[in-house]
């Protein structure tokens, strides 16, 4: 039956059964886990100087995107995401399963694609040389833009490429809006499965931080980390984020659906909540985080928190003030290790939470400020936090399956 069921049909338990990671630390769960436990960080302080970015670790694209023609139709952000989505489907054991993929729902959190920097520069230089004839911009764009570039830039074409390359073709929705788009993708997918409107979904996003056009946008707000890399909690002197490069996707499904096909879960996705603080007064972000925390569910002491804290101010300081009120939670800021991957940071946090629970350990701190403490026991509950650099706040509760 395709029709949605009654909202009072009960609340289904939802499991994370697939994780796909292709990040600046490497490809796959083992490579990322090893890097995290060895406290390795991959930053480029020179290529975009004075800006710092986390470059994507190269992969053999052919293993997930077999057709060269498909690879050529995408820009880097789409290749990263399509690659990571393939890893998630492999991890869930549904790759190539046409019956499941044909009814799998998909919610992608996306920004937009790379501009052709040479074309832009060509127009600017022609303008600087005094070319101001009517239609000069039209003529340059008509002759210089690659016809298919638009498709590599369109936000919903990451989902489109995942459908084409991997056959995920139940439904396809793309959420935009920076960090909180990743929260809402998980929130809506979870709500639909819990209410019986859906059985299985692919959620996630991808981001390419090696982009000067994005640096310009964030430089408008002075958000870029410059000159010297520091962990997220040690950026008081110079706030900001280093753009990261990552694809992070998860397969989530109802417990009943997973059990029926014999799928092994990594963890349970128990709850996702989100809000929009107006951030008019100092403390607004902290107040919103407190409210979201109270909505998450039954939290036991001594758990862990994975936060996508950006390093941008004032949000990061307010989040830190919130965290100090939960001193027995072991905190990890994913932005230190992976950089800030914007729409992808929250799905990345969910992926790392599920991975940590399945490995029975939280990875070690990468911070000397004292915010992050060791966690000696296996985590049973991990709260994932995503407070946007400018707007949008969200939280999720990921738990070990009882």
């Amino acid at each position, binding site marked *: 039956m395709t029709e949605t069921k009654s909202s009072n049909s009960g609340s289904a338990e939802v499991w994370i059964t697939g994780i796909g990671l292709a990040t600046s630390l490497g490809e796959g769960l083992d490579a990322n886990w090893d890097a995290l436990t060895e406290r390795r960080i991959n930053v480029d302080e020179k290529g975009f100087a004075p800006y710092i970015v986390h470059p994507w670790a190269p992969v053999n694209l052919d293993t997930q995107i077999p057709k060269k023609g498909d690879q050529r139709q995408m820009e880097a952000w789409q290749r990263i995401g399509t690659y990571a989505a393939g890893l998630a489907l492999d991890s869930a054991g549904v790759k190539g399963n046409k019956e499941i993929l044909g009814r799998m729902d998909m919610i992608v959190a996306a920004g937009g694609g790379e501009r052709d920097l040479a074309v832009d*520069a060509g127009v600017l230089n022609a303008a600087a040389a005094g070319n101001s004839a009517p239609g000069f911009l039209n003529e340059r764009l008509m002759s210089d833009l690659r016809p298919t570039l638009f498709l590599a830039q369109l936000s919903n074409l990451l989902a489109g490429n995942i459908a084409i390359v991997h056959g995920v073709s139940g439904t396809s929705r793309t959420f935009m809006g920076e960090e909180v788009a990743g929260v809402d993708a998980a929130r809506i997918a979870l709500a639909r499965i819990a209410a019986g409107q859906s059985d299985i979904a692919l959620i996630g996003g991808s981001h390419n931080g090696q982009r000067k056009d994005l640096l310009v946008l964030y430089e*408008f707000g002075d958000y870029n980390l410059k000159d010297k890399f520091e962990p997220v909690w040690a950026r008081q002197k110079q706030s900001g984020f280093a753009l990261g490069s990552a694809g992070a996707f998860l397969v989530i499904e109802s417990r009943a659906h997973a059990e029926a096909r014999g799928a092994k879960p990594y963890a349970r996705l128990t709850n996702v909540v989100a809000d929009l603080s107006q951030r008019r007064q100092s403390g607004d972000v902290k107040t919103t985080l407190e409210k979201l925390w109270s909505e998450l569910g039954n939290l036991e002491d001594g758990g862990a928190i994975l936060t996508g804290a950006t390093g941008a101010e004032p949000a990061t300081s307010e989040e830190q003030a919130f965290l100090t009120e939960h001193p027995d939670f072991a905190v990890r800021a994913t932005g230190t290790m992976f950089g800030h991957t914007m729409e992808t940071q929250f799905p990345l946090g969910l992926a790392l939470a599920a991975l940590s629970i399945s490995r029975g350990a939280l990875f070690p701190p990468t911070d000397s400020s004292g915010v992050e403490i060791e966690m000696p026991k296996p985590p049973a509950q991990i709260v994932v936090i995503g407070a946007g650099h400018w707007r949008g706040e969200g939280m999720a509760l990921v738990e070990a399956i009882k």
Partner: protein
Amino acid sequence: MTASRDRFGRPIVVVTGMGIVTSLGAGKTDNWARLTAGESGIRTITRFPIDGLKTTMAGTVDFVDVEPRSSTGLSERLAEMATEEALEQAGIGRKGDFPGPLFLAVAPVEVEWPQRLELGRAATGQQLDYDDLLRVSGGGQYAPYHRRFTFGSVATYLAETFGTKGSPISLSTACASGATSIQLGVEAIRRGETDAALCVATDGSVNPEALVRFSLLSALSTQNDPPRAASKPFSKNRDGFVMAEGAGALVLESYDAAVARGAPILGVLAGCGELTDSFHRTRSSPDGKPIIGCVRKTLADAGMTPEQIDHINAHGTATPENDKMEYLAISNVFGEHAKQIPVSSNKSMVGHTISAAGAVEAIFSLLTLEHQRIPPTINYDMPDPTILFDVVGNKARDARVTAVMSNSFGFGGQNASLILTREPI
């Protein structure tokens, strides 16, 4: 009808407020009068020079201006106008305090040429490149451009202005975006998460680069003269769609909540469906199966049979590909009935409002139900002999209409359909 749940036991979702802006005008009254009179909103572009362009006309909303000018700024203003009208009609909540979430369909956002050229003028260098732009971008003088050109900016503004609850969702499913925004609202009410949802879809993106992008994909009509004759859905000589601007806003409520507060019930969102086409980035699967599946899912979601649909508000873009595939899919699902259902495409008059189209056309579908009058498909002078729809050609038609199917299909394999009825089924 007194039952407050549908045959599947879900809360019935009704529409209690609508607002619309298109190239035909602002508001339901003007739009409906002009639409049913067969007027075109397509005109030669005057907003920017058209030299060097293959397509020189569009359905621009020229009677609204924003300062500083940007497509995202115009999208925001159009959405605000449509929302104000919808909220006034619904009479829900208090000013600045809407009791539910916002689902916003909006075009992808990026820094635009006027701002990029402004940076270029501020930069210094023999041969400008992005490093030169980066050197002048910081320091706060361009901080408003960060606010303007982040993807969440329009939703944030609307959420703060109208006081919607929770995290506002900005979404894009290309040309199906408007339908998806409505679908998200329907699903939230059916889940019992909320009694009301604000679904808004907007697009103000007629700018040089957007036009060039579609032009390079050979998607646009180039029959520029006269502009009003460019958009020719279901005609043999159709040659592409016409870009257009507009916005639609709908207040959705559970039937119970609407009745409890004595709200006007303008129609029912009886069913929604979507199914992805994984064939190609811009073309439909030649067998039409994904569109067929989408239409079938929508009928199943509404618990209706094809015979119960008595009008189709077509996607009808007037590209050679779309109209052919839409007919193939509809005739497959509806059989002989497909030739008897009156079909019309609003895009013949307002153009293709892209991200807004699904909501704009849902509103026109609801107005069709209200007035029992089907708007025409203008420029229908040379019917495509392979498309055997009963096209409502050139003149509006009075008809008994109880259920309308509204279709939206977009790049990236996005297919979404809605079924709207006057009364609960």
